[in-house]
C-alpha cells in the first residue's frame, strides 16, 4: 500500500478519479446490481421460493435495462451525429451501441423465458451439477425436484458482459467484458439436466478453447499497445493513420485480435467449438449463446474494425474476405452431412456468421446498418428454433437425431410449421426476415465492391437451402408411408394424426402415452408450457413480420448506423 502511493506520487500527478456519468451506464448497472442481488438470493432465500424469485428478478432487471436503453436512445443528451464517451472514455454510448444493447436485452429477455421453462421435461438444468453423473446423489436431487437456480445470476452476469462488449471503447475494457461474458457461459454449458457427460465435455471444450482465444486477444492488445502506445480505439486509429499503417506490430496485433473475436463469432477456421458446444449445452443456453452472444461479439468486432482499424481497411480486408468465404463455404458444406438437429443449427450459425462478415468487410455505414439488422432478425429466429428443439423429446431427453423428427408435421402441425418458418428464414426465402437481412448485407457488400463475396454467399445460400429443405422434407413428407424405417410407431402416429384431424384442431397435442413397449425410444412432442409458447410465438412473429414489413426496424438500424460508431 505504502510503496504504491510512493510510486504514484513519484511518477505522475496525483490520481484523478474519472468523472463517471452513472446515468449513461444505468442499463449495465441495473443488470449488474440484479446479478449481485441474485447471488444474495441464492445464498439466503429458502429453496422453495428461490427459483421464482430469481426468475422474477432477472426478467425485471433485463426488462428495466431495456427500458432505460430506450430512454437513452430517445434522450436529447445524445448528440444526433455521434455519441458520448463515459467513464474516462472507456465506454462509448452511441447509436449503434444502443441498438445492439437493445437487441441484446430483448433477446436475453426471450432467452430467459426459455431458460425459465420448467413444464418441458422438468426444465433443462441439472439437479445437482456437482454430483457425478449417474450417482446416487444425482438421483436424490432429481427425486427432490431440484434445479440449479444459480443459472439466473450467471445469465445476468453474462448479459452484463455482453452489454459492455460492444460498448467498450478501449481494448482492455473490451477484454474484461469478454471475460465477464465468457466465464458464466462456460459454466452454464455444463449444467444440462440430461446427457450430462456430453454437457460437461462441451463446457470443458468451450473453456479451454475460449481461454486460448482470450490469450490471443490479450496478446494482440499487447502488440497494439506496443505500436500505438494506447489501448484506446481512437488513439489506435490516429496512430495508424499518422504512420500510414503497414507496421508489423500493428498487423500482428490486428490479426491476433481478429482471432480472438472470430473465435467468439465462430468463423472458420475458429468454428470447431460451435457444433460440440451447441450440442452439449442445455438447449436454452444454446439459444442464448447462438443469439445474444453472437450479437454482442459481432458488435465488438464491428466497433474494433470500424473505429480502431478503419483506416487500415485495405490491410485487413483481404483477411476478412478469406475468412468470410471460408466460413460460408465450409459451414454450408459440412452442415449438409449433419444428422443431429442441434449440430445442424450450429453449422447454420457458422454460415450466418459468414454472411454478416461480408457486410463487415464493406466498412460502410450501409454495411454497419445491414449487420445490425441481420443480427437482430437472426437472433429471434434462432431462439425460436432452439425452443422447438426442446419440445421434441424421447425418454432420454431431447430427440435431436434428424430421423426422430420424421413425420412431425402430422403429430404437431403448428410446431412443424413454425420450425419450417424458421428454417425458411434461415434459408433466406422471400417474405421472411432472413431474406431481407441477407438482401441488406449482400447489397452493402456489393456496393462496396465485394462481388465475389456476394456470389459465394449466394451459392452457399443455395447449399444451406438444401439442408433446410431436407429437414422440412423429414418433418412433412416422411412418415406413415415408410413403416419400415420407423418400426411400430407408424400406425400409432397415423392413428393419432387422424384423431386430431377428426377433432378439427390444429393445436400442438401431446400424444397419448404409447402402450407399445418398444426397444426403440418413443419420440413425442411435449406440450409446450406458456413460456415456450411465448418464445416460439415471438420468434415466429418476428420472422414473418420483419419479412413482410421490415421498414421500421430497417429504419432504426440504418439510422443507428448512419454516423457509425463514436470515436
Amino acid at each position: 500500500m505504502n510503496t504504491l502511493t510512493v510510486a504514484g506520487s513519484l511518477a505522475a500527478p496525483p490520481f484523478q478519479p474519472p468523472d463517471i456519468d452513472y446515468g449513461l451506464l444505468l442499463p449495465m448497472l441495473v443488470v449488474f446490481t440484479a446479478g449481485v442481488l441474485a447471488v444474495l438470493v441464492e445464498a439466503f432465500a429458502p429453496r422453495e421460493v428461490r427459483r421464482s424469485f430469481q426468475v422474477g428478478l432477472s426478467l425485471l432487471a433485463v426488462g428495466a435495462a431495456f427500458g432505460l436503453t430506450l430512454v437513452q436512445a430517445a434522450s436529447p443528451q445524445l448528440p444526433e451525429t455521434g455519441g458520448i464517451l463515459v467513464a474516462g472514455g472507456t465506454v462509448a454510448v452511441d447509436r449503434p451501441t444502443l441498438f445492439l444493447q437493445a437487441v441484446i436485452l430483448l433477446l436475453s429477455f426471450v432467452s430467459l423465458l426459455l431458460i425459465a421453462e420448467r413444464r418441458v421435461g422438468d426444465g433443462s438444468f441439472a439437479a445437482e451439477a456437482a454430483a457425478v453423473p449417474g450417482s446416487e446423489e444425482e438421483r436424490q436431487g432429481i427425486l427432490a425436484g431440484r434445479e440449479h437456480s444459480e443459472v439466473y445470476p450467471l445469465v445476468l452476469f453474462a448479459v452484463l458482459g455482453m452489454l459492455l462488449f460492444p460498448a467498450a471503447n478501449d481494448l482492455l475494457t473490451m477484454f474484461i467484458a469478454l471475460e465477464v461474458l465468457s466465464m458464466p457461459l462456460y459454466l452454464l454449458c455444463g449444467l444440462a439436466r440430461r446427457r450430462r457427460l456430453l454437457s460437461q465435455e462441451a463446457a470443458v471444450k468451450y473453456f479451454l478453447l475460449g481461454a486460448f482465444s482470450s490469450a490471443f486477444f490479450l496478446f494482440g492488445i499487447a502488440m497494439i499497445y506496443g505500436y500505438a502506445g494506447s489501448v484506446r480505439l481512437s488513439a489506435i486509429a490516429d496512430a495508424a493513420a499518422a504512420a500510414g499503417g503497414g507496421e508489423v506490430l500493428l498487423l500482428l496485433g490486428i490479426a491476433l485480435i481478429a482471432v480472438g473475436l472470430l473465435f467468439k463469432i465462430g468463423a472458420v477456421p475458429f468454428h470447431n467449438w460451435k457444433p460440440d458446444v451447441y450440442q452439449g449445452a442445455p438447449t436454452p443456453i444454446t439459444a442464448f449463446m447462438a443469439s445474444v452472444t453472437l450479437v454482442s461479439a459481432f458488435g465488438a468486432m464491428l466497433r474494433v474494425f470500424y473505429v480502431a482499424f478503419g483506416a487500415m481497411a485495405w490491410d485487413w480486408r483481404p483477411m476478412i474476405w478469406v475468412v468470410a468465404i471460408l466460413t460460408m463455404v465450409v459451414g454450408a458444406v459440412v452442415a449438409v452431412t449433419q444428422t443431429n438437429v442441434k449440430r445442424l443449427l450450429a453449422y447454420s450459425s457458422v454460415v450466418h456468421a459468414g454472411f454478416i462478415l461480408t457486410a463487415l468487410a464493406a466498412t460502410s455505414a450501409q454495411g454497419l446498418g445491414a449487420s445490425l439488422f441481420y443480427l437482430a432478425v437472426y437472433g429471434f429466429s434462432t431462439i425460436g428454433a432452439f425452443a422447438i428443439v426442446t419440445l421434441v423429446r424421447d425418454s432420454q431427453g431431447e430427440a435431436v437425431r434428424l430421423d426422430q423428427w420424421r413425420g412431425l408435421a402430422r403429430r404437431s402441425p403448428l410446431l412443424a410449421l413454425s420450425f419450417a418458418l424458421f428454417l425458411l428464414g434461415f434459408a433466406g426465402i422471400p417474405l421472411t426476415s432472413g431474406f431481407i437481412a441477407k438482401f441488406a448485407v449482400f447489397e452493402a457488400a456489393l456496393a462496396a465492391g465485394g462481388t465475389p463475396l456476394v456470389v459465394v454467399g449466394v451459392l452457399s445460400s443455395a447449399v444451406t437451402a438444401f439442408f433446410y429443405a431436407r429437414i422440412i422434407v423429414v418433418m412433412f413428407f416422411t412418415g406413415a408411408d415408410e413403416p419400415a424405417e420407423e418400426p411400430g410407431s407408424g400406425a400409432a402416429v397415423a392413428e393419432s394424426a387422424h384423431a386430431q384431424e377428426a377433432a378439427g384442431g390444429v393445436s400442438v397435442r401431446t400424444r397419448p402415452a404409447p402402450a407399445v413397449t418398444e426397444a426403440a425410444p418413443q419420440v413425442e412432442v411435449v406440450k409446450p408450457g406458456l413460456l415456450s409458447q411465448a418464445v416460439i410465438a415471438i420468434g415466429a412473429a418476428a420472422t414473418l413480420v420483419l419479412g413482410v414489413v421490415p421498414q421500421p426496424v430497417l429504419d432504426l438500424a440504418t439510422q443507428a448506423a448512419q454516423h457509425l460508431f463514436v470515436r
Partner: protein
Amino acid sequence: MSAIPWLTIAIVLPLIGSVVVAAMPSSGAERAKQVTLAFSVLVLAVVAAMALQFSPGGPRFQFEEVYPWIPAFGISYAVGVDGIALLLILLSALLVPLVVLAGWNEVDASTSKYSTKTYFALILVLEAMMIAVFAATDVFLFYVVFEAMLIPVYFMIGGFGTGRRRYAAIKFLLYSLFGGLLMLVAVIGLYVAAGQQGEATFLWEPLAAMAADIDPATARWLFLGFFIAFAIKAPLWPVHTWLPSAAESARPGTAVLLVGVLDKVGTFGMLRFCLELFPEASRWAAWPIVILALISILYGAVVAIGQTDMMRLVAYTSVSHFGFIVLGVFAFTTQGHAGAALYMVNHGLSTGALFLIVGFLMLRRTERSQLIGDYTGVGRTAPLLAGTFLVAGLASLSLPGLSPFVSEFLVFMGTFTRYPVIAIIAALGVILAALYILWLYQRTMTGPRPEGAAPFADLSPRELLAVGPLVALLVLLGLFPQPMLDVVNPAVESTLEQVGATDPAPEVPAAAEEGTSE
C-alpha cells in the same frame, strides 16, 4: 389510371380464399372444394372485368398502382399490366377454376396424408402469386413472388404428388432456388448499378429508361443472372431435367399450373426483364441462346417420342415448345415477339388440356397408372374423352385452324427473317411433334378394347365442363387470333423499340424493316 385497384383485388382475393379454405374443418372436404371454386370463379370474373377495360391503344402499362414498401431499399409495391401480362393473368385466372373442377376427386384421404382442403388452399395461394408475378412492375416485388411461388408448388408436389414425389419436389426446389439466387445477385447488382446512374430504384420503368447507360460489361453479367434463372424456369435445355420429374410426380392439376403458367414466368421474364433492361447484352447473347432454343426444340421432341409415361411425355413436349417461345423472343422481330407472347397463352391452353385429360384417364384406373402401355382402345367406350384428347393433341402439334398454329407460324416467320437456317432446322420440331402426339393417340385411344377389362367411362359433365372451355378456346382463338394480337402488339412494339434503341442498324436491316413494316 383507374380508381379501382383491380390488380390488388385480383391478388388479395385468392389469398383471402386460401385463408378461408384453410380455416374450414378438415372433415368438410366437399365444402372446401366448393369454396375454392367459388373464389377462383370470382377472381376470373374480376380479371375478366379488368381485361374488358384494357385499352390496347392506351399507355403501355395500365391499372398501375405504386405504393412504397421498403423505402430504405427503394422497394415499392408496384403493379401494372401491359398486353402480354394481361393475357397471362387471364390465362392463370382461367386455368385455376378449371383445375379445381378437374381435380375434384384427384386428391383425397387415400392419396395423401394431408387433408384435402390444404391442397385447395395451396392452389389459391398459388393463384395469387401467379397473378402478382405477372403484374409486378417492381423488379424486387417480381423477384420476391418469383421465389415465394416455389413454396406452394413444393408442398403441392411433395405433399400430394405420386411416385417419387419427395425427390421430384426437392429437385424442383433446388433447381429453382439456384436460379433464383443467381437472379438475386443480379437484382441487387441492378439496384447498385441504378444507384450509380443516379436513382437507386427497383421500379421497372425508370430502370428500363436508364438501361442503355449501364456499363456494358456489368450489364452482361446482370443479364446472365436474370437469364439463367429464367432459363431454368422456362425450362431450356440443358437445365430442363427438373420438369419431367416434377410433372411425373405432380397431380395433373398441379402439372397444369406448373407447366401452363409457372414456366411462362421464365419466358415472360426474358421478354420483360432480360430484353428491356439489358438490350445490348441481349443482342450480345442472342446467338448462343438461339442455339440452345433450337436444341431444346429438337431434344424435347425426340425424347418425348421415347417416353412411356404420359405425364413425362407431355412435359417433354413442353420443353420443345418452350424452345419455340425462346426462339421467338430472341429473334428480335415483331412477328417473333408477338408469336412468342401468343405461344405462351396457347401453350397454356393446349398443354393444360392435355394434362387434364391425361388426369381423367388416370382416374379411370384404380391404380392410377401413368404408363402409356396400360391403356388401349379407350376411344371405343369413351369417345368424348378421346375426342377432346385428339383436339388438344392436334393443337399441341399446331394444326392449322387451332390457336397454337397462329403463334407457331408467327414465331417461324419472325425467326426466318433473321435466322433462316435456324428456322428451317426448327421446323423439324413440328414433324417430330406430329409423331409424338399421333403415336400417343394411336397407342392409347385406338385399337381393340382390352378383353375382360371394364369399359372406360366417358367424360362426366363436370370433367367436360373443365376441359370444354379449353378446347373451345383453342378452336376460337385459332380462327380469330386478331383480338389477342391487338392486345399484345403495343407491348411487343415498345419492347422492340427498347431493344433496338441502342442499335439502330440491326444485323439484317432489310429483314428487320420488313418485319416491322408489316
